[in-house]
């Protein structure tokens, strides 16, 4: 029995996982990072367009601050987000980006003087302030009031991840590559680490830790077409679920990005539209202003994806053998801009479509992109139900995105949540509360259980083909749990997924019987888990009889705050269950700084919560009174919904900003 002991086990070597690792290391704790692939190849590297942080350096960001970022984030979430968490996030995003600047990210900078930009299909001249010269600049993204998305060309995630991984090298963070966590080790509601499988040798290893962090990203690959890397299969959520103790939040909240290329589903960044690109239909007609006259192409992602789908349903899509699509036109931006600020997009167009985006339109359609749902945590990143288990980044439902994430808020979340959760974990480790005792027999039992499961897959006869089950699951999610949803299809999806789950217990790994590196074996056990994850998502969507953010029910078009202002919580307490258990967590209007309102897209169909009006009046009255008393924006905010005391002390400082306090 191979056992490795560490203070903090981190599962996942992307931005979030690495930021937790360097953070706990700095506080003097040991850590081991388990990763499927070299950390620099994690899906974080694929984030193109940028990271939101309210620095307000660029002229188009004038007047931006934490309050505006907070309000954009809450509106974007369709009031599904945890407002305290969103406050903590917007307060720390400037700190995270400045820290990364010190660690080497070559953020694109403000050039003083005039520059040309495209806004609403027209050339305009923007004059950048002299005093902002050389500070971090920002571009426009959807659903934001200010230009707030900081970037390095369109390789933002790549640059952040490289700086982060290099920092981890500097700190001597121990990284165990090509190791896959396949089960959490736990007893009586306390997590003690994980069983991991070495993907090169097949060896099973028990990692025993005082704190365990899951930072494995999203579960986009339960869909047949996704912008996600192929490793984003939801295995972090799955092992949490299989513990029977940890819970998942809002698994039905799935984002579709408007502009992935057809047919392969590779992303072209929202920066294309942020920088002035347009969406056109089969007639070359710019249709978004007809649907969303105010924000047009830069409405929130869920809105643009729905409008595109609506427009294609009207027969305005471009026919192709891969189904209908629309056009993304960035020719208007000019070759120089594309080759400097949209280089990855250019490479993708050249290599996968054989077109030059400075001349040709790009075939695009909305495609699965982001998982708002994930392992449900407290604001500290700790599971609400399993002590010592933490999660952050896309893997978690922390929950700052609610039912729709804003572009640029995901990489931002990874590093902000990473730096905060590292502190909370360190506090836990420094306290008596983290003391632990676990019998070696118990550890052995977990190892044996996993060993037996793998052997069963390899020795089964006359079983099911994992690929067949997986492809069917992917199709069901694509066809029935998509952008527009309805009760009939969702019921079908749930029933059929349940059937697939039963069949998946009988999977056989055909021919390829190696106990070492064996892609067929990996596919077999991951398929079993992916079907469970898919079920939590489909069932959550079926039960949620309203439309909120990216969850859009054609049979329930209203956002129903009275009945559905709550998070879907799923768990799997008994391994023999063929369906997850579901419960709900209320989101309390009376605790909100920003009570539910209208997002400003289309017609207002909201069915309001009876408390909303009362709370709004009280917020308005408090604000008015305090403004009259001459209190500043921090003091007023604090009176409405205090959050500072929740932050680690080192992160409570006021952010410097040009024109405000510099």
């Amino acid at each position, binding site marked *: 029995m191979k056992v490795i002991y560490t203070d903090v086990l981190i599962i996942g070597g992307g931005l979030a996982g690495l930021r937790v690792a360097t953070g706990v290391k700095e506080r003097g704790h040991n850590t081991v990072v388990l990763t499927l692939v070299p950390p*620099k190849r994690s899906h974080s*590297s694929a984030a193109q367009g940028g990271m939101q942080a309210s620095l307000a350096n660029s002229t188009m960001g004038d007047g931006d601050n934490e309050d505006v970022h907070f309000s954009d984030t809450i509106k974007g979430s369709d009031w599904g987000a945890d407002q305290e968490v969103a406050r903590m996030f917007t307060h720390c995003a400037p700190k995270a980006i400045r820290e990364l600047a010190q660690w080497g990210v070559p953020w694109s900078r403000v050039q003083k003087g005039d520059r040309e930009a495209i806004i609403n299909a027209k050339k305009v001249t923007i004059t950048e302030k002299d005093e902002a010269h050389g500070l971090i600049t920002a571009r426009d993204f959807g659903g934001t009031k200010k230009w707030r998305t900081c970037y390095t060309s369109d*390789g933002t995630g790549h640059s952040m991840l490289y700086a982060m991984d290099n920092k981890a090298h500097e700190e001597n963070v121990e990284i165990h590559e090509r190791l896959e966590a396949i089960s959490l080790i736990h007893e009586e509601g306390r997590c003690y680490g994980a069983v991991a499988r070495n993907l090169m040798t097949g060896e099973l290893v028990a990692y025993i830790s005082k704190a365990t962090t899951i930072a494995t990203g999203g579960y986009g690959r339960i869909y047949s077409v996704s912008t996600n890397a192929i490793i984003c299969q939801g295995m972090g959520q799955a092992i949490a679920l299989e513990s029977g103790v940890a819970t998942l939040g809002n698994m039905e909240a799935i984002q579709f990005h408007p502009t992935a290329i057809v047919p392969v589903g590779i992303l072209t960044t929202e920066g294309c539209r942020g920088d002035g690109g347009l969406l056109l239909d089969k007639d070359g007609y710019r249709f978004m202003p007809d649907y969303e006259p105010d924000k047009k192409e830069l409405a929130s992602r869920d809105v643009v994806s729905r409008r595109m789908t609506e427009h294609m349903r009207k027969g305005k899509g471009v026919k192709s053998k891969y189904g209908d699509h629309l056009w993304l036109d960035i020719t208007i931006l000019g070759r120089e801009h594309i080759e400097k600020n949209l280089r990855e997009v250019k490479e993708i167009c050249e290599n996968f479509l*054989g077109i030059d985006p400075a001349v040709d339109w790009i075939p695009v359609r909305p495609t699965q992109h982001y998982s708002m749902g994930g392992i449900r945590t407290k604001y500290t990143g700790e599971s609400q139900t399993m002590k010592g288990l933490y999660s952050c980044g896309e893997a978690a439902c922390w929950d700052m995105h609610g039912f729709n994430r804003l572009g640029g808020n995901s990489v931002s979340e990874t590093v902000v949540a990473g730096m905060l959760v590292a502190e909370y974990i360190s506090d836990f480790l420094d306290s008596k509360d983290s003391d632990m005792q676990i019998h070696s027999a118990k550890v052995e039992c977990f190892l044996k259980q996993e060993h037996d499961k793998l052997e069963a897959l390899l020795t089964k006869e006359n079983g099911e083909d994992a690929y067949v089950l997986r492809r069917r699951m992917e199709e069901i999610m694509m066809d029935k749990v998509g952008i527009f949803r309805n009760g009939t299809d969702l019921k079908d999806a749930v029933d059929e997924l349940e059937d697939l789950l039963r069949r998946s217990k009988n999977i056989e790994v055909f021919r*390829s019987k190696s106990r070492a590196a064996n892609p*067929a074996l990996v596919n077999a056990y991951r398929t079993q888990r992916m079907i469970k994850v898919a079920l939590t998502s489909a069932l959550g969507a079926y039960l949620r009889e309203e439309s909120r953010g990216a969850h859009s029910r054609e049979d329930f078009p209203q956002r129903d705050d009275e009945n559905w202002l709550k998070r879907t919580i799923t768990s799997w307490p008994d391994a023999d269950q063929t369906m997850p258990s579901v419960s709900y967590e209320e989101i309390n209007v009376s605790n909100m700084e920003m009570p539910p309102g209208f997002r400003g897209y289309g017609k207002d169909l909201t069915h309001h919560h009876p408390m909303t009006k009362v709370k709004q009046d009280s917020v308005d009255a408090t604000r008015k009174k305090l403004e009259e008393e001459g209190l500043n924006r921090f003091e007023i905010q604090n009176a409405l919904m205090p959050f500072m005391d929740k932050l680690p002390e080192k992160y409570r400082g006021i952010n410097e900003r040009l024109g405000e306090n510099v």
Partner: protein
Amino acid sequence: MRDEKKPRLLKISILRFDPHDPEDVPHMETFEVEESDGMTLYIVLNEIREHHDNSLKFDFVCRAGICGSCSMLVNGRPTLACRTLTSKLGEHITLAPLPLFELIGDLSIYTGKWMRYLNEHLETWIHDKEKEVAFDKLEERMEPALADEIYELDRCVECGCCVAGCGTIQMRPSFTGAVGLNKIARYHLDPRDKRSDEEYYELIGDEDGIFGCMTLLGCEDVCPKDLPLQSKIAYLRRMMIKTSMKN
């Protein structure tokens, strides 16, 4: 439509070997796959795994030419498989793992270990002992053009193609390779890194570093990110000679 051409039948020959199987020896195996529109080697290899041989090992992560995982020899030339369209190749395609890296099996190689050693050895991070972390304050300024120039070199994806395409490293396995030299050029350019020319000289001022390069420049030919490796190697060599003369 009548005039649609019959799709080609591709012959994919793959160098196969499972180092964990004592019975196995390296051998070529050929699979036939019907070509489809817009087909990439990512699609080809997954089709082979799903329908012909589920034990076939290879590495893809982003499958979008961004992460650098899927470098392999395609008809003898190092490149990223995910973004290689079959339409640009002949009917018979040979695939082999990148040489020089530890083999995990078939087309799967352990680049992570090699790159990790490289990064640790060259200390590819910002060195600034004086600096105190100050995340509440306005960030330090940088000239916009300089930031762009650093990003240009920061675009390396550690795919290992330059290493596989390097003539020098074939003879001197301890050679840093273009990937490492480019990283030094990147940090040297970055004013946030306070290392002196002498400190850089310590890292690459020998035959395993800049003076080992025979200027064959296979690296520049095969770099999937079109990094300016030739000019950066030339620049580093001039700088290192200057530094050595100074001392």
